[in-house]
């Protein structure tokens, strides 16, 4: 732990935080450019809004200002006041409130998926590697291929039907304790969408962990440990696993952000009140503030998680020094 509290460590974190702000600003600027390059604006409707009415709306939202002014206003509001502005679609709702109210639901299924996905994925990967080319290994790899090949919407429907609709309508299980096909507010409601979301993580983790374990098993320190007469369990747990885990840890950050950033399909199918729908709608409605706000929010999240991952890396791997 000594090296963590060193001057070098603080300087390292400080530098990373400054970089984080710059990265976020660049992200926001690029988002602004792309957002405005897309045809239409937040007031584009299938039925055109009459010109006089449109003029009033543009004035109200500041859309009639020169585009550079709009950029400055948005950046200033976001980075200085910490206010993402209001949605053009769900009028009267600020993006900050949207995040506060709906991010927890996305995060709940995301964290659940991460726990299940990592545990099962790592376990499956280890077993597959230890019993390489056995039946278990083949089955695990087959499941991975299926997991990659089938679109997540289809998996969600299959999960919803076979784990909720079928048991309720045909097996007459007690609806008060069994999974609800659609619903939110109780712990049981996290399980189906969380499980669906975890399948992608399982496939990724299994394949990655398996290949890392196989690589490490040929490493010289493993051979040395074996030669010393260490038991297989000890070799696997202390030598193979620990070293194979290192690259996997670096994957956890991006996977975590991916998992909590809301899946439109899964949230929509299971009735999870997350941010997935809002994010998707913001793109199709040119809802500038929501699109910008959520992009910067997730971007910031990603940067911070990456920073934490790097620090954790140092904890697990004593070879890494900050400074």
């Amino acid at each position, binding site marked *: 732990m000594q090296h963590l509290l060193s001057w070098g460590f603080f300087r390292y974190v400080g530098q990373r935080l400054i970089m984080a702000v710059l990265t976020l600003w660049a992200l926001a600027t690029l988002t602004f450019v792309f957002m405005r390059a*897309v*045809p*239409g604006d937040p*007031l*584009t409707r299938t*039925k*055109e*809004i*009459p*010109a*006089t*009415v449109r003029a*009033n*709306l543009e*004035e*109200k939202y500041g859309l009639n200002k020169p585009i550079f002014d709009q950029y400055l206003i948005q950046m200033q509001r976001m980075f200085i006041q910490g206010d993402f502005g209001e949605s053009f*679609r*769900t*009028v*009267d709702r600020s993006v900050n*409130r*949207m995040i506060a*109210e709906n991010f*927890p*639901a996305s*995060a*709940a299924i995301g*964290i*659940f998926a*991460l*726990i299940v996905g990592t*545990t099962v994925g790592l376990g499956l990967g280890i077993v597959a590697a230890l019993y390489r080319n056995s039946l278990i290994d083949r089955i695990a790899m087959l499941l991975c291929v299926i997991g990659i090949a089938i679109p997540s919407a289809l998996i969600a*429907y299959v999960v*919803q*039907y076979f784990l*909720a*609709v079928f048991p*309720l*309508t045909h097996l007459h299980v007690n*609806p008060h304790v069994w999974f*609800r*096909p*659609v*619903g*939110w*507010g*109780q*712990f049981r409601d*996290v399980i189906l969408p969380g499980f669906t979301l975890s399948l992608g993580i399982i496939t990724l983790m299994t394949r990655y962990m398996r290949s890392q374990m196989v690589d490490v098993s040929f490493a010289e320190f493993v051979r040395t440990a074996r030669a010393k007469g260490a038991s297989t369990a000890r070799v696997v*747990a202390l030598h193979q*696993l620990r070293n194979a885990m290192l690259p996997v840890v670096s994957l956890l950050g991006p996977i975590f952000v991916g998992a909590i950033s809301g899946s439109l399909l899964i949230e*929509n*199918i*299971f*009735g999870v*009140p*997350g941010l997935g*729908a809002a994010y998707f709608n913001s793109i*199709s409605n*040119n809802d500038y503030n929501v699109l910008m706000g959520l992009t910067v929010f997730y971007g910031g999240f990603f940067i911070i998680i990456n920073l934490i991952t790097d620090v954790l890396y140092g904890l697990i791997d004593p070879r890494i020094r900050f400074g």
Partner: protein
Amino acid sequence: MVLKSAMTRGAAAALFLVAAVLYASGVRAEQKSQDQRALSQEVYFSAGDEPPSMDPTKQADTISSMWLGHIFEGLMSYDPAGNIIPGTAESMTSSEDKKTWTFKIRKSARWQDGKPVKAQDFLYSWRRLVDPAYASEYSFIAIAAGILNAEDIISKKQPKENLGVRAVDDHTLEVQLSRPVPFFDSLATFQVFYPLRRDIVEKFGDKFATDPASIIGNGPFKLAAWQKEQSMRIERSPTYWDADKVRIQAIQSPAMVKDSQANFNNFQTGGIDYTTTSSPEIIKQAQAAKLKIQTFPTGCTTYIAFNVRPGRPFANKLLRQAVRDGVNRSEFVNKIIGVPGYKPTLGLVPDYMPGSKKGMTYRREAPVKGRDADYPSSQKHLQEYLAVSKQTQAPSFTILSDDGTLAKKFVEYWQNSLAKLLNTEVRVESVPFKTRLQKSRDGNYDVTLSGWCPDYRDPMTFMDLFTAGNDNNMTGWVNKTYEALIVKAANESDIAARIKLFAEAEALLLDESPMVPLDQTGGAFVVAPALKNMRHNAFGFSPDFRYAVWDSQPKH
């Protein structure tokens, strides 16, 4: 061992985190089973999405309208058969020229906090609608309604106090129109004309209508709970003047799910009592489960829109007529759309538009000549076209379409069938939805599939679409006779004469064929058999549970 205990601790902490996050994320309310709901007269359904706004003046999308239609009530309302009846007003009188309308507001009308509904509440709400500073997207309805000075106020030429509306006393509202608007009674049912309480709006400011505390309506239900993107619940209001007739005690959307398959699954397991089944796949499942599928019109007309500007393939009327007569609307509706509730149409104005006499529809008074899939007539026009233009083949052309799943399916059908019909090459340009809108507005296309949904209950909402000044007329079609007929109809106060003018204009439009009507849109739904009297309106809001009732226990 160290690793294992660290992992166990980590997992325990993470599970705790999930629980904490879940707790922070929303209601922990118990949900009732269908039997319990029937006993307590509650309805569960899926509203489909978060309402964009619960401020009646701000938005008029279908989801907001549905909730607001239960929470508020306009001067006029709809009865279970869809007729216009007095709502918050007990009577309505119009002057001979249909330019002055007087509404007497019920003395028994109450807001949900017990205060009486006054004429001033309507006056306040209507002035807010046209206030340019407030900038309601739907303020144009006040122009369509012909309310005196509305247009000048919206374009900042006059102050909002000059709006042609006056509270004569607490219970009398007088409306001055700039031209005869015989359908003003149907406009008076519309959500942007609901009353609003000045004290409530001003008290909450930006937070008005964002939670149950900041919404006080005058309708049969009051907002009881609203969890954003998750659930919404309204409960019967005892202060409503006609509360005795309201049997349903509460209406709840336990989840705001758009996905129709998920909603159908939820319906099948008794999680909700009603859902729409508006896709062929779900219709099949509902049929397999032996459910009764019911249909309703959703009000819009879909058509093929031509670009008639010079130099475009369909600049020539004869070629357009060949398409008009040759398309097989029934095949398109039944085989390609595949949702009961849709129906083929030869005319632009939908079948439900009222006619001049009570009980009559516009369509029965103004039938359309011609028939669907009249192949010989189509060939005759095509041959005439080839002879006149001295061509041996019809020109090739491109259909502009967006890249949505449904749009792709539809355009593929039209690509094949129009190629066969006109014996020419047909290409498809598939672009994102907004690009399609932009291109069609710029007149940068040959042919596209388009449609129109009504703003109010009068043929005019369809007919003025094809006037030169209309922003939504993308075809480039301009016809002096047509313009004159529409202007004449707009100033005609005699209803029968008006219908005649519309019939004449529509016949001219269909003869010229800048567009070819295909179908009238519809929807299908399934509902728990014991839940009776729920309604769908082509106008106003849907679904309408105001008159609904559970008449017995649901059967399993």
